[in-house]
Protein backbone atom coordinates (compact mmCIF):
# COMPACT_ATOMS: atom_id res chain seq x y z
CA UNK A 1 0.00 0.00 0.00
CA UNK A 2 2.84 2.37 0.80
CA UNK A 3 4.07 2.12 -2.75
CA UNK A 4 0.83 3.42 -4.11
CA UNK A 5 1.50 6.77 -2.61
CA UNK A 6 -0.43 9.09 -0.40
CA UNK A 7 -4.15 9.54 -0.33
CA UNK A 8 -5.83 12.18 -2.41
CA UNK A 9 -6.51 14.63 0.39
CA UNK A 10 -3.03 14.45 1.84
CA UNK A 11 -1.63 14.72 -1.64
CA UNK A 12 -3.63 17.84 -2.31
CA UNK A 13 -2.64 19.47 0.96
CA UNK A 14 0.98 18.55 0.46
CA UNK A 15 1.07 20.19 -2.97
CA UNK A 16 -0.54 23.34 -1.69
CA UNK A 17 1.84 23.54 1.26
CA UNK A 18 4.85 23.04 -0.97
CA UNK A 19 3.70 25.68 -3.41
CA UNK A 20 3.02 28.09 -0.59
CA UNK A 21 6.43 27.47 0.89
CA UNK A 22 8.11 28.10 -2.43
CA UNK A 23 6.21 31.31 -2.89
CA UNK A 24 7.15 32.42 0.60
CA UNK A 25 10.82 31.84 -0.10
CA UNK A 26 10.56 33.60 -3.43
CA UNK A 27 8.92 36.71 -2.05
CA UNK A 28 11.28 36.94 0.90
CA UNK A 29 14.19 37.24 -1.46
CA UNK A 30 12.89 40.57 -2.58
CA UNK A 31 14.89 43.72 -2.74
CA UNK A 32 17.00 42.65 0.20
CA UNK A 33 16.43 45.79 2.18
CA UNK A 34 14.53 44.74 5.25
CA UNK A 35 15.92 47.67 7.18
CA UNK A 36 14.45 51.12 6.82
CA UNK A 37 15.42 52.52 3.51
CA UNK A 38 17.18 55.88 3.72
CA UNK A 39 15.46 58.88 2.20
CA UNK A 40 17.37 60.17 -0.74
CA UNK A 41 16.62 63.21 -2.80
CA UNK A 42 18.52 64.13 -5.90
CA UNK A 43 18.47 67.26 -8.00
CA UNK A 44 20.47 68.80 -10.74
CA UNK A 45 21.96 71.93 -9.19
CA UNK A 46 25.21 73.83 -9.40
CA UNK A 47 25.64 72.32 -12.85
CA UNK A 48 25.96 68.83 -11.40
CA UNK A 49 24.09 66.10 -9.60
CA UNK A 50 23.38 66.95 -5.98
CA UNK A 51 21.86 64.57 -3.49
CA UNK A 52 20.98 64.46 0.16
CA UNK A 53 20.50 61.13 1.90
CA UNK A 54 18.97 61.04 5.35
CA UNK A 55 19.44 57.80 7.26
CA UNK A 56 18.09 58.52 10.66
CA UNK A 57 14.61 59.73 10.09
CA UNK A 58 11.49 59.16 8.14
CA UNK A 59 11.26 62.84 7.46
CA UNK A 60 11.39 63.30 3.72
CA UNK A 61 11.06 67.01 4.05
CA UNK A 62 14.50 67.43 5.55
CA UNK A 63 16.24 66.13 2.50
CA UNK A 64 14.06 68.11 0.14
CA UNK A 65 14.45 71.24 2.20
CA UNK A 66 18.20 70.90 2.25
CA UNK A 67 18.23 70.75 -1.53
CA UNK A 68 15.92 73.74 -1.69
CA UNK A 69 18.45 75.55 0.44
CA UNK A 70 21.10 74.58 -2.05
CA UNK A 71 19.06 75.98 -4.91
CA UNK A 72 18.52 79.13 -2.92
CA UNK A 73 22.20 79.67 -2.41
CA UNK A 74 22.87 78.96 -6.02
CA UNK A 75 20.56 81.77 -6.95
CA UNK A 76 22.38 84.06 -4.57
CA UNK A 77 25.92 83.16 -5.48
CA UNK A 78 25.95 82.27 -9.13
CA UNK A 79 27.53 84.77 -11.46
CA UNK A 80 25.28 83.59 -14.25
CA UNK A 81 22.06 84.39 -12.41
CA UNK A 82 21.15 87.97 -13.23
CA UNK A 83 19.95 89.12 -9.82
CA UNK A 84 22.29 87.12 -7.62
CA UNK A 85 24.36 88.91 -5.04
CA UNK A 86 27.47 88.10 -7.00
CA UNK A 87 26.07 89.57 -10.16
CA UNK A 88 25.17 92.70 -8.26
CA UNK A 89 28.72 93.06 -7.04
CA UNK A 90 30.05 92.38 -10.49
CA UNK A 91 27.76 94.87 -12.08
CA UNK A 92 28.30 97.62 -9.56
CA UNK A 93 31.09 99.19 -11.57
CA UNK A 94 33.27 99.76 -8.56
CA UNK A 95 30.49 100.99 -6.30
CA UNK A 96 29.68 99.45 -2.95
CA UNK A 97 27.09 96.71 -2.58
CA UNK A 98 25.53 95.31 0.52
CA UNK A 99 25.38 91.55 0.78
CA UNK A 100 23.94 89.01 3.15
CA UNK A 101 25.87 87.71 6.13
CA UNK A 102 26.48 84.40 4.47
CA UNK A 103 27.89 85.88 1.32
CA UNK A 104 30.12 88.12 3.39
CA UNK A 105 31.36 85.09 5.30
CA UNK A 106 32.04 83.31 2.07
CA UNK A 107 33.99 86.22 0.69
CA UNK A 108 36.02 86.34 3.86
CA UNK A 109 37.01 82.72 3.35
CA UNK A 110 37.77 83.37 -0.27
CA UNK A 111 40.07 86.19 0.70
CA UNK A 112 41.76 83.98 3.24
CA UNK A 113 42.59 81.32 0.69
CA UNK A 114 43.67 83.92 -1.76
CA UNK A 115 46.22 85.10 0.74
CA UNK A 116 47.31 81.68 1.90
CA UNK A 117 47.84 80.48 -1.64
CA UNK A 118 49.70 83.63 -2.52
CA UNK A 119 47.26 84.31 -5.25
CA UNK A 120 47.04 80.84 -6.70
CA UNK A 121 43.46 80.59 -5.56
CA UNK A 122 41.59 83.66 -6.69
CA UNK A 123 37.86 84.25 -6.81
CA UNK A 124 38.24 87.35 -8.96
CA UNK A 125 39.08 85.18 -11.94
CA UNK A 126 35.58 85.80 -13.28
CA UNK A 127 36.77 87.96 -16.16
CA UNK A 128 38.88 85.11 -17.47
CA UNK A 129 36.69 82.16 -16.57
CA UNK A 130 33.84 83.74 -18.49
CA UNK A 131 35.89 83.20 -21.63
CA UNK A 132 36.10 79.47 -21.03
CA UNK A 133 33.29 77.01 -21.43
CA UNK A 134 33.70 73.67 -19.73
CA UNK A 135 30.14 72.82 -19.03
CA UNK A 136 28.41 72.48 -22.33
CA UNK A 137 28.44 69.25 -24.22
CA UNK A 138 29.01 70.76 -27.60
CA UNK A 139 31.64 69.14 -29.71
CA UNK A 140 33.26 72.38 -30.58
CA UNK A 141 34.32 73.74 -27.25
CA UNK A 142 37.30 75.83 -28.02
CA UNK A 143 40.04 77.49 -26.09
CA UNK A 144 39.58 81.23 -26.08
CA UNK A 145 41.85 83.58 -27.95
CA UNK A 146 45.06 84.21 -26.03
CA UNK A 147 44.67 87.92 -26.72
CA UNK A 148 41.24 87.91 -25.08
CA UNK A 149 42.71 86.26 -22.06
CA UNK A 150 45.52 88.75 -21.91
CA UNK A 151 43.03 91.55 -22.03
CA UNK A 152 41.03 90.11 -19.14
CA UNK A 153 43.97 89.13 -16.98
CA UNK A 154 44.64 92.53 -15.40
CA UNK A 155 41.21 92.51 -13.80
CA UNK A 156 42.15 89.41 -11.84
CA UNK A 157 43.41 89.94 -8.34
CA UNK A 158 41.71 89.24 -5.07
CA UNK A 159 43.25 92.34 -3.58
CA UNK A 160 40.60 94.15 -5.57
CA UNK A 161 38.00 92.94 -3.13
CA UNK A 162 37.23 95.43 -0.43
CA UNK A 163 35.17 93.81 2.25
CA UNK A 164 34.04 95.51 5.42
CA UNK A 165 31.23 93.93 7.31
CA UNK A 166 28.49 93.38 4.79
CA UNK A 167 29.70 95.91 2.31
CA UNK A 168 31.62 94.79 -0.72
CA UNK A 169 33.33 96.74 -3.38
CA UNK A 170 35.49 95.81 -6.31
CA UNK A 171 38.22 98.38 -6.68
CA UNK A 172 38.69 97.64 -10.34
CA UNK A 173 35.31 97.96 -12.06
CA UNK A 174 36.40 95.34 -14.61
CA UNK A 175 37.00 92.73 -11.93
CA UNK A 176 34.50 89.92 -11.86
CA UNK A 177 33.83 87.51 -9.04
CA UNK A 178 33.58 83.80 -9.74
CA UNK A 179 32.91 81.79 -6.64
CA UNK A 180 32.80 78.48 -8.50
CA UNK A 181 35.92 77.23 -6.79
CA UNK A 182 34.52 77.58 -3.31
CA UNK A 183 30.75 77.92 -3.42
CA UNK A 184 29.94 74.21 -3.47
CA UNK A 185 31.77 73.68 -0.24
CA UNK A 186 30.19 76.68 1.36
CA UNK A 187 26.73 75.55 0.37
CA UNK A 188 27.39 72.02 1.59
CA UNK A 189 28.32 73.44 4.99
CA UNK A 190 25.09 75.39 5.12
CA UNK A 191 23.11 72.31 4.22
CA UNK A 192 24.86 70.31 6.91
CA UNK A 193 24.12 73.03 9.44
CA UNK A 194 20.50 72.99 8.45
CA UNK A 195 20.20 69.24 8.82
CA UNK A 196 21.91 69.28 12.18
CA UNK A 197 19.60 72.03 13.38
CA UNK A 198 16.64 69.95 12.28
CA UNK A 199 17.85 67.19 14.53
CA UNK A 200 18.99 64.83 11.82
CA UNK A 201 21.47 62.42 13.34
CA UNK A 202 22.79 60.67 10.30
CA UNK A 203 22.92 62.00 6.78
CA UNK A 204 25.06 62.36 3.72
CA UNK A 205 25.38 65.35 1.43
CA UNK A 206 26.80 64.89 -2.03
CA UNK A 207 27.16 67.93 -4.22
CA UNK A 208 28.71 66.66 -7.40
CA UNK A 209 31.31 64.63 -5.54
CA UNK A 210 31.83 67.09 -2.72
CA UNK A 211 30.86 65.00 0.28
CA UNK A 212 29.81 66.14 3.71
CA UNK A 213 28.95 63.50 6.26
CA UNK A 214 26.49 64.58 8.91
CA UNK A 215 26.52 62.95 12.30
CA UNK A 216 27.39 59.33 12.74
CA UNK A 217 26.78 56.48 10.39
CA UNK A 218 24.06 54.12 11.47
CA UNK A 219 25.55 51.30 13.43
CA UNK A 220 28.43 53.41 14.70
CA UNK A 221 30.98 52.47 12.07
CA UNK A 222 32.97 55.28 10.47
CA UNK A 223 31.78 56.73 7.18
CA UNK A 224 33.60 55.29 4.25
CA UNK A 225 34.06 57.60 1.30
CA UNK A 226 35.44 56.14 -1.86
CA UNK A 227 37.80 58.20 -3.97
CA UNK A 228 37.01 57.90 -7.61
CA UNK A 229 39.95 57.22 -9.82
CA UNK A 230 40.90 60.72 -10.96
CA UNK A 231 42.78 59.40 -13.95
CA UNK A 232 40.86 58.88 -17.15
CA UNK A 233 38.86 55.68 -17.40
CA UNK A 234 40.48 53.03 -19.51
CA UNK A 235 39.94 49.39 -20.21
CA UNK A 236 40.47 47.40 -17.09
CA UNK A 237 40.90 50.45 -14.88
CA UNK A 238 39.45 50.35 -11.41
CA UNK A 239 36.60 52.62 -10.54
CA UNK A 240 38.02 53.80 -7.23
CA UNK A 241 41.59 54.02 -6.04
CA UNK A 242 40.75 53.69 -2.38
CA UNK A 243 38.61 55.07 0.39
CA UNK A 244 38.94 57.28 3.42
CA UNK A 245 37.22 56.75 6.71
CA UNK A 246 35.86 59.64 8.70
CA UNK A 247 33.60 60.08 11.67
CA UNK A 248 31.22 62.81 12.60
CA UNK A 249 30.25 65.82 10.54
CA UNK A 250 33.15 66.12 8.17
CA UNK A 251 33.84 67.24 4.64
CA UNK A 252 35.59 65.12 2.06
CA UNK A 253 36.21 67.18 -1.03
CA UNK A 254 38.11 66.62 -4.20
CA UNK A 255 39.47 68.67 -7.02
CA UNK A 256 40.82 67.10 -10.13
CA UNK A 257 41.96 67.94 -13.60
CA UNK A 258 39.97 65.20 -15.25
CA UNK A 259 36.52 66.16 -14.00
CA UNK A 260 35.77 68.80 -16.54
CA UNK A 261 37.94 69.23 -19.54
CA UNK A 262 37.97 69.24 -23.26
CA UNK A 263 40.53 68.37 -25.84
CA UNK A 264 41.28 70.64 -28.73
CA UNK A 265 43.90 69.91 -31.35
CA UNK A 266 45.53 67.36 -29.12
CA UNK A 267 45.82 69.67 -26.13
CA UNK A 268 43.83 69.00 -23.03
CA UNK A 269 42.24 71.95 -21.26
CA UNK A 270 40.93 71.31 -17.77
CA UNK A 271 38.72 73.59 -15.72
CA UNK A 272 41.07 74.71 -12.92
CA UNK A 273 42.52 77.95 -14.20
CA UNK A 274 45.72 79.51 -13.00
CA UNK A 275 44.95 83.13 -12.10
CA UNK A 276 48.40 84.16 -13.19
CA UNK A 277 48.08 82.89 -16.76
CA UNK A 278 44.37 82.63 -17.37
CA UNK A 279 44.94 79.15 -18.71
CA UNK A 280 44.43 75.75 -17.06
CA UNK A 281 46.97 75.33 -14.32
CA UNK A 282 50.02 73.31 -15.24
CA UNK A 283 50.20 70.72 -12.55
CA UNK A 284 51.40 67.22 -11.89
CA UNK A 285 48.32 66.44 -9.86
CA UNK A 286 45.43 64.53 -11.36
CA UNK A 287 43.38 64.88 -8.22
CA UNK A 288 43.50 65.68 -4.56
CA UNK A 289 41.06 64.79 -1.82
CA UNK A 290 41.14 66.61 1.50
CA UNK A 291 39.35 65.88 4.73
CA UNK A 292 38.38 69.07 6.52
CA UNK A 293 35.94 70.20 9.11
CA UNK A 294 34.29 72.67 6.86
CA UNK A 295 33.64 72.02 3.21
CA UNK A 296 34.35 75.60 2.21
CA UNK A 297 37.89 75.01 3.44
CA UNK A 298 38.04 71.72 1.66
CA UNK A 299 37.18 73.36 -1.63
CA UNK A 300 39.59 76.20 -1.17
CA UNK A 301 42.38 73.85 -0.18
CA UNK A 302 41.89 71.33 -2.93
CA UNK A 303 41.52 73.90 -5.67
CA UNK A 304 44.59 75.70 -4.40
CA UNK A 305 46.60 72.50 -4.18
CA UNK A 306 45.88 71.52 -7.74
CA UNK A 307 47.24 74.84 -8.91
CA UNK A 308 50.24 74.64 -6.58
CA UNK A 309 51.32 71.23 -7.79
CA UNK A 310 52.16 68.22 -5.69
CA UNK A 311 55.36 69.49 -4.02
CA UNK A 312 54.08 72.82 -2.77
CA UNK A 313 50.73 71.28 -1.96
CA UNK A 314 52.38 68.67 0.22
CA UNK A 315 54.26 71.29 2.13
CA UNK A 316 51.13 73.24 2.84
CA UNK A 317 49.12 70.20 3.80
CA UNK A 318 51.75 68.78 6.12
CA UNK A 319 52.35 72.14 7.75
CA UNK A 320 48.69 72.52 8.48
CA UNK A 321 48.12 68.91 9.43
CA UNK A 322 45.48 68.38 6.81
CA UNK A 323 44.58 64.77 6.01
CA UNK A 324 44.62 64.41 2.27
CA UNK A 325 45.20 62.01 -0.59
CA UNK A 326 47.05 63.28 -3.63
CA UNK A 327 47.06 61.48 -6.94
CA UNK A 328 49.68 62.50 -9.43
CA UNK A 329 49.21 62.24 -13.15
CA UNK A 330 51.70 59.39 -13.23
CA UNK A 331 49.48 57.43 -10.87
CA UNK A 332 51.50 57.89 -7.69
CA UNK A 333 49.42 58.29 -4.57
CA UNK A 334 50.65 60.40 -1.67
CA UNK A 335 48.93 60.84 1.65
CA UNK A 336 49.36 63.63 4.15
CA UNK A 337 48.26 64.19 7.71
CA UNK A 338 46.62 61.39 9.61
CA UNK A 339 44.21 60.51 6.87
CA UNK A 340 42.55 57.17 7.27
CA UNK A 341 43.14 56.01 3.74
CA UNK A 342 42.78 52.51 2.45
CA UNK A 343 43.82 51.80 -1.12
CA UNK A 344 41.94 49.34 -3.21
CA UNK A 345 43.82 46.15 -3.90
CA UNK A 346 43.64 44.29 -7.14
CA UNK A 347 44.48 40.60 -7.07
CA UNK A 348 46.44 39.03 -9.87
CA UNK A 349 43.59 37.57 -11.85
CA UNK A 350 42.08 40.95 -12.27
CA UNK A 351 39.41 40.45 -9.67
CA UNK A 352 38.35 43.56 -7.91
CA UNK A 353 38.68 43.23 -4.18
CA UNK A 354 37.91 46.21 -2.04
CA UNK A 355 38.56 44.45 1.23
CA UNK A 356 41.89 43.79 2.78
Amino acid at each position, binding site marked *: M*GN*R*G*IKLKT*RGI*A*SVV*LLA*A*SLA*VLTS*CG*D*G*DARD*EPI*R*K*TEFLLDT*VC*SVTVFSRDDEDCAAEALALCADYERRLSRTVADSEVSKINGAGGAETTVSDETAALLERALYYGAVSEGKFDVTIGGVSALWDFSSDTEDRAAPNPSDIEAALPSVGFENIELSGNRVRLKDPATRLDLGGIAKGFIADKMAEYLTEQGVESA*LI*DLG*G*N*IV*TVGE*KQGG*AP*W*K*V*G*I*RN*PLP*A*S*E*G*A*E*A*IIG*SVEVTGTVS*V*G*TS*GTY*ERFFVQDGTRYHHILDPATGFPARTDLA*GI*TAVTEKSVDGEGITTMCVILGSDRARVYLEQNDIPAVLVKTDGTVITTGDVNYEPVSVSKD*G*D*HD*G*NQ
Partner: protein
Amino acid sequence: MTEINKPGNPIRRADIILIAALLILATIGAALVSRGGVYADDADVRITVDGALYGVYPIGEAREIVVQGNYENRIVIEAGDADVMQVRVAGATCPGKDCVHHAPIRLGGQSIVCLPNRLSVEITGGERDIDAFTY
Protein backbone atom coordinates in the same frame (compact mmCIF):
# COMPACT_ATOMS: atom_id res chain seq x y z
CA MET B 1 0.38 -5.06 -16.51
CA THR B 2 0.04 -2.29 -19.02
CA GLU B 3 -0.35 -0.03 -16.03
CA ILE B 4 3.44 0.18 -16.00
CA ASN B 5 3.24 3.22 -18.16
CA LYS B 6 0.35 4.78 -16.35
CA PRO B 7 1.20 7.75 -14.18
CA GLY B 8 0.02 6.44 -10.85
CA ASN B 9 -0.45 9.00 -8.13
CA PRO B 10 0.65 12.53 -8.80
CA ILE B 11 2.49 12.96 -5.54
CA ARG B 12 4.46 10.32 -3.78
CA ARG B 13 6.69 10.36 -0.78
CA ALA B 14 9.78 10.36 -2.93
CA ASP B 15 8.56 13.41 -4.81
CA ILE B 16 8.09 15.39 -1.65
CA ILE B 17 11.56 14.46 -0.51
CA LEU B 18 13.03 15.50 -3.85
CA ILE B 19 11.19 18.79 -3.90
CA ALA B 20 12.04 19.52 -0.30
CA ALA B 21 15.70 18.76 -0.90
CA LEU B 22 15.82 21.04 -3.95
CA LEU B 23 14.01 23.79 -2.07
CA ILE B 24 16.45 23.58 0.79
CA LEU B 25 19.38 23.73 -1.61
CA ALA B 26 17.86 26.72 -3.32
CA THR B 27 17.12 28.51 -0.05
CA ILE B 28 20.67 28.00 1.16
CA GLY B 29 21.91 29.28 -2.15
CA ALA B 30 19.62 32.27 -1.93
CA ALA B 31 20.83 33.08 1.55
CA LEU B 32 24.43 32.96 0.38
CA VAL B 33 23.71 35.17 -2.57
CA SER B 34 21.51 37.71 -0.86
CA ARG B 35 24.43 38.81 1.27
CA GLY B 36 25.34 40.98 -1.65
CA GLY B 37 21.90 41.32 -3.11
CA VAL B 38 21.22 44.63 -1.56
CA TYR B 39 20.54 47.87 -3.25
CA ALA B 40 23.83 49.67 -2.96
CA ASP B 41 24.65 52.89 -4.69
CA ASP B 42 28.30 52.42 -3.96
CA ALA B 43 28.36 49.31 -6.08
CA ASP B 44 30.38 48.86 -9.23
CA VAL B 45 29.32 47.59 -12.58
CA ARG B 46 31.83 44.99 -13.62
CA ILE B 47 32.00 43.98 -17.25
CA THR B 48 33.92 40.96 -18.46
CA VAL B 49 34.30 39.69 -21.97
CA ASP B 50 35.39 36.13 -22.48
CA GLY B 51 36.49 35.95 -18.91
CA ALA B 52 38.78 38.96 -19.08
CA LEU B 53 37.97 42.10 -17.18
CA TYR B 54 36.79 44.77 -19.56
CA GLY B 55 36.13 47.56 -17.09
CA VAL B 56 34.68 48.53 -13.76
CA TYR B 57 32.40 51.52 -13.52
CA PRO B 58 30.69 53.14 -10.54
CA ILE B 59 26.97 52.61 -10.59
CA GLY B 60 26.29 56.13 -9.41
CA GLU B 61 27.46 57.75 -12.64
CA ALA B 62 25.32 57.67 -15.72
CA ARG B 63 27.23 56.07 -18.52
CA GLU B 64 26.93 54.31 -21.81
CA ILE B 65 29.45 51.62 -22.59
CA VAL B 66 29.76 49.98 -25.95
CA VAL B 67 31.47 46.61 -25.86
CA GLN B 68 32.82 45.17 -29.07
CA GLY B 69 33.38 41.48 -29.18
CA ASN B 70 32.05 38.94 -31.61
CA TYR B 71 29.05 41.20 -31.47
CA GLU B 72 28.33 44.56 -30.04
CA ASN B 73 26.54 45.27 -26.79
CA ARG B 74 25.50 48.69 -25.64
CA ILE B 75 25.29 48.83 -21.88
CA VAL B 76 23.63 51.75 -20.18
CA ILE B 77 24.11 52.68 -16.55
CA GLU B 78 21.24 54.86 -15.46
CA ALA B 79 22.17 56.71 -12.32
CA GLY B 80 19.77 58.53 -10.10
CA ASP B 81 17.56 57.97 -7.12
CA ALA B 82 17.24 54.59 -5.51
CA ASP B 83 14.18 53.65 -7.51
CA VAL B 84 15.53 54.89 -10.79
CA MET B 85 19.06 53.62 -10.81
CA GLN B 86 19.62 50.57 -12.92
CA VAL B 87 21.85 48.86 -15.43
CA ARG B 88 20.60 47.41 -18.66
CA VAL B 89 21.64 46.40 -22.10
CA ALA B 90 20.10 48.97 -24.37
CA GLY B 91 21.07 47.45 -27.66
CA ALA B 92 22.98 44.59 -29.17
CA THR B 93 23.85 43.05 -32.49
CA CYS B 94 23.78 39.49 -31.26
CA PRO B 95 21.16 37.06 -32.52
CA GLY B 96 18.30 36.57 -30.15
CA LYS B 97 19.00 39.73 -28.14
CA ASP B 98 18.19 37.99 -24.87
CA CYS B 99 20.46 40.47 -23.17
CA VAL B 100 18.33 43.34 -24.37
CA HIS B 101 15.10 41.66 -23.34
CA HIS B 102 16.53 40.93 -19.94
CA ALA B 103 15.05 43.04 -17.18
CA PRO B 104 17.32 45.83 -15.92
CA ILE B 105 19.37 44.89 -12.90
CA ARG B 106 19.73 46.96 -9.78
CA LEU B 107 21.03 44.89 -6.90
CA GLY B 108 24.43 43.61 -6.00
CA GLY B 109 24.98 40.12 -7.35
CA GLN B 110 22.62 40.44 -10.27
CA SER B 111 24.01 40.06 -13.75
CA ILE B 112 23.11 40.14 -17.41
CA VAL B 113 24.93 37.99 -19.90
CA CYS B 114 25.19 37.88 -23.65
CA LEU B 115 26.26 34.40 -24.58
CA PRO B 116 27.14 35.00 -28.22
CA ASN B 117 29.34 37.90 -27.21
CA ARG B 118 30.73 36.13 -24.15
CA LEU B 119 29.73 39.18 -22.18
CA SER B 120 28.90 39.39 -18.51
CA VAL B 121 27.65 42.53 -16.81
CA GLU B 122 27.36 42.26 -13.07
CA ILE B 123 26.74 44.56 -10.16
CA THR B 124 29.30 43.98 -7.48
CA GLY B 125 29.78 45.60 -4.20
CA GLY B 126 27.65 46.26 -1.25
CA GLU B 127 30.54 44.36 0.29
CA ARG B 128 32.84 47.31 0.18
CA ASP B 129 30.37 49.21 2.28
CA ILE B 130 31.17 52.58 0.79
CA ASP B 131 28.78 55.34 1.68
CA ALA B 132 29.64 57.90 -0.96
CA PHE B 133 32.09 58.76 -3.67
CA THR B 134 34.11 61.87 -3.89
CA TYR B 135 35.40 63.14 -7.22
